[in-house]
């Protein structure tokens, strides 16, 4: 059942304009995801309502919305940290509700304020998460060497994490996210709170992940980032989907060339 009243453009994204490298079946598919929090005094808060969307390999999918729109809740449901109160999602062929463990094995998750263990070194952190993902020790070592070179962090692999700069930490975080080479990346406002250089690391990382044919879902409220990175995007407001489609479709929706205007237009005309 259509939960919200939207124009035909959002209900049926033009498949002909499908993103550049995206191919094959949906790797991430949300099916009517909903989350209701029980508050005090029997009150209920509906954080996310009947959200459906999909994302393919080699595609960067943006989740856009103002603060409190339900982006983080949505991404947490996709990554199984929260369980949906209605609907479900299928990631890399596994259901988030019934097979959380297997879903988590194929996801790399990163957010802007993800922390590292301050008393461990980057190598120890990466090792730890590699082991938790069931990787063999030599495989982990090999992977760490690979990522250290890629992210240019060989110099501080043995330092304690609390001695690292924000930029260095973010690189370690990126490495931690992909230590097990997951097919799906879930990034929750990955650049929030970062300076320009550290943000750059993230942006490069997203680009590279697309090159590697991964499926990337990331949330943001920064239009510029979305414009540069996204193949397709969804706009969420008040917990519900307000728009889904390509950048061009969003521009068309706004009736002008400016994406920001279009974004605001969608929010203002939200159901």
């Amino acid at each position: 059942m259509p939960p919200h009243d939207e124009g035909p453009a959002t209900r049926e994204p033009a498949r002909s304009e499908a993103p550049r490298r995206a191919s094959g079946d949906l790797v991430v598919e949300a099916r009517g995801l909903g989350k209701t929090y029980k508050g005090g005094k029997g009150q209920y808060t509906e954080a996310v309502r009947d959200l459906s969307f999909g994302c393919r390999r080699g595609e960067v999918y943006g989740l856009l919305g103002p603060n409190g729109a339900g982006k983080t809740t949505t991404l947490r449901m996709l990554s199984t940290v929260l369980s949906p109160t209605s609907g479900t999602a299928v990631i890399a062929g596994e259901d988030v509700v019934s097979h959380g463990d297997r879903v988590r094995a194929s996801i790399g998750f990163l957010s802007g304020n993800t922390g590292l263990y301050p008393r461990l070194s980057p190598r120890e952190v990466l090792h730890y998460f590699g082991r938790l993902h069931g990787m063999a020790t030599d495989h982990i070592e090999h992977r760490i060497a690979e990522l250290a070179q890629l992210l240019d962090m060989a110099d501080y692999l043995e330092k304690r994490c609390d001695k690292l700069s924000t930029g260095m930490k973010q690189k370690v975080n990126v490495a931690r996210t992909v230590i097990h080479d997951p097919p799906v990346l879930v990034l929750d406002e990955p650049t929030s709170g970062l300076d320009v250089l550290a943000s750059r690391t993230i942006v490069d990382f997203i680009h590279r992940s697309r090159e590697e044919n991964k499926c990337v879902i990331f949330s943001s409220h920064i239009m510029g980032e979305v414009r540069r990175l996204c193949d397709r995007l969804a706009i969420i407001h008040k917990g519900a989907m307000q728009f889904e489609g390509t950048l061009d479709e969003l521009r068309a929706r706004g009736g002008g060339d400016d994406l920001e205007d279009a974004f605001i237009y969608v929010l203002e005309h939200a159901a």
Partner: protein
Amino acid sequence: MNLRTIGVLARKEFKDVLRDRRTLFFMVLLPMVAMPVIMIAGSRFVKKQAAEKEQRVLQVATNAGGERVITGLRDRWMADNQVAVGLTIAKFGIDSLDDQEAIADFFVRLGKARQAGGGEAGGELMAAMYEAWQKLPEEQQRLLLDYGAVNRFMSLTKFRRFRSLPKEGKLSPGVKIPDDMPDAEALNLPPDASLPDPEVVALAVQEKVVHGALYVPTPGGDEASAAREVFVTLDEGRAYRIDVLYDASISLSKEFLDRFEGFMAALERDEMRRRVLNEGLRSTFVAPFDLEPADIASASRKLQGALGGLLPYLIIVFCFLGAFYPALDLTAGEKERFTLETLLLSPISRLDIAAGKFVVVFVAAVTAAILFTTSMFITVTQGVLPEGLLAGLDFRLEPLAIVLTLSLLLPIAAVIAALVLGVALCGRSFKEAQNYVAPLQILFIIPGMVAFLPDLETETHLAWIPLVNVSLLMKELLKGNYLWDFYWITLGSLLLMTALVLWGSSLLFRRESVLMRT
């Protein structure tokens, strides 16, 4: 549950937690160092305090004639007993009654040896002295003790007239002894009157200007009449009244009462002897019963009883202290550092996460308790403590007792670890978790303290109450009593509680409202 995963988790958490100074402090340093230090310093302090109290010259306020009456009574006692005392004391190598120092030293040692119940506790010299004293005829034993009591009170008391009490000065701000501080002479009280203006004297005692007050009847209102009155009263076979004022809440004031009562008891015995003699009666006439209580508990056994109560209590405390920081660090600490979410995103079950963390906190709790117990035993057995305090203390530490104690320690540590971990998880930050966990101490400490209650015995129904049972049982194990029925019920009830708390905590770890509460 996946053991490999739990192993990976626990190993990392150990590494992490062991790099945290706070954890190391509470898990290793405190239990190992704190106890010996507290015990050594504490016992030295107590000894010093006691010695100071013994030597302390006490100030006693009296009305006119008070000092003369007391001194007169003392002189009468000495005149009656001097020869006998001199002869008896000579047996201990003290030549004359003029050697005040040697006599004082003798009585201090004798007092200590009696307190310690003889044996090795008082040191070799004292033991010999005590033995010699014990061999004396009962009458001579008594005489020496009375001589000590009389001397002690007289030599360590400074009498002050009520009039000489300070008007102001050392008193608390706002407290004033009134200008018209009454004096018995001025008041011209009748013989049976109580203390002159008791309120004022009471104030002086409370303000520690004096340690107590004595009031004797002064029928003529002056010193001479008071001095006459006392002997007239006694010789007529009547009772002579002395009013004594003290404050039981002030320890030195109590000390004054003790010394004075000792003094008066000696005088009373002397006076009684005189009266019996004068009436031509036998001494047993006024002592119809001859009661001889004998305390068969040795001092070391008494101390063992006290320590037996303390040990389980402290083991519980140190379990808690050991668990405290790691538990907070691994739960609320992870939330505060934004690392919990990443952990939850690993393809491992939440039960495994809980188990991994539990293992670490559990080991920390056990480590703290074992380190504490070890260091405590080293302190007690290696004579680190001041000589005499614990000498002769005989811990029966048989291997079986150790195994059984450990078997009780493990479930206690498990309960504490699981509970603290679960509660700490509810905190959003380290600080908040601290606020939640700290009050839990009471839950463990109060049942741990029941072993201090001297009358609580190892009755079977108490074996069902977790922690209370451990306290009681450990105390018995330390004495070498193996109460098997009690043990099995204790173990069973502990394991039941462990299972319950573990289950509850694991439920918390599966609740996203708790996990994501940031």
